[in-house]
């Protein structure tokens, strides 16, 4: 492989505390990896939004009762065909099935509960770890199986 060749996968593991600079840096690091693999604007939007919502859930809900410096763990990998994100927190976990559907008429005016449904809308696959304090997301590049 020459230095000019794109690696097949770019991955990293990051600690992210309740700090806007750290959160923004993590999101931009993943977004920059998408740029290097030539993902388009819509993919960038989908991944950034899902990552933002996943980190917000982990930090502001999962770590609600923990010191702000307590980090969540973000692991990501970006390849020409897909993006994988895994966010783990140290909180008590939650049952994603217990969050009311925010799109039902009776819930439309509730100010919260939309992060999870946005992640499900924009990601190809979403699953939660058994303790409810880890979310795994996969974004398949539209018309993937092609080079960037």
């Amino acid at each position, binding site marked *: 492989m020459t230095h000019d060749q794109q690696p097949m996968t770019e991955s990293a593991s990051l600690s992210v505390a309740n700090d*806007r600079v750290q959160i923004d840096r993590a999101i931009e690091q993943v977004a920059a990896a998408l740029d290097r693999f030539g993902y388009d604007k*819509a993919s960038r939007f989908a991944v950034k939004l899902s990552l933002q*919502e996943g980190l*917000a859930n982990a930090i*502001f809900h999962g770590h609600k009762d923990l010191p702000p410096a307590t980090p969540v763990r973000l692991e990501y990998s970006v390849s020409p065909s897909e993006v994988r994100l895994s966010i783990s927190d140290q909180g008590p976990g939650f049952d994603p099935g217990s969050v009311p559907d925010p*799109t039902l008429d009776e819930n439309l*005016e509730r*100010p919260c509960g939309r992060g999870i*449904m*946005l992640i499900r809308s924009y990601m190809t696959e979403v699953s939660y770890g058994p303790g409810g304090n880890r979310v795994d997301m996969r974004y398949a590049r539209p018309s993937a199986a092609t080079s960037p």
Partner: protein
Amino acid sequence: MQSKDSRLRVRRIDNITQVEFIDRNILDEGNIQAIAEEIARLIESDPSPRLLICFQNVDHLSSAALGALITINNKVRDRRGQLRLSNIDPQIQEVFAITRLTKIFQIHETAEEAIRSFKPA
């Protein structure tokens, strides 16, 4: 009155309060709360608020920001006011559609169109 730390541009023209965001990304929970409180003060200072929120410069919006908009909508409605949104990027418009918030917000393509839609106070 806007503070020096305001994340908003506010104009008042023909009894319509027009609000624009300074930030391209409205993601930070602390900033969102400050923005919501500033808009709440604008609403509370007007007995019959007519409020236009223009998203011209906004690229990203979190679910927390959507929640703040719902709270703002409820405050405007409580005062029998009117709220319009305009200039929303197509990708963010899609977020409003996915969450079905297009059902509770009046969204217009341009600020001019939104201004024309206000009923007389």
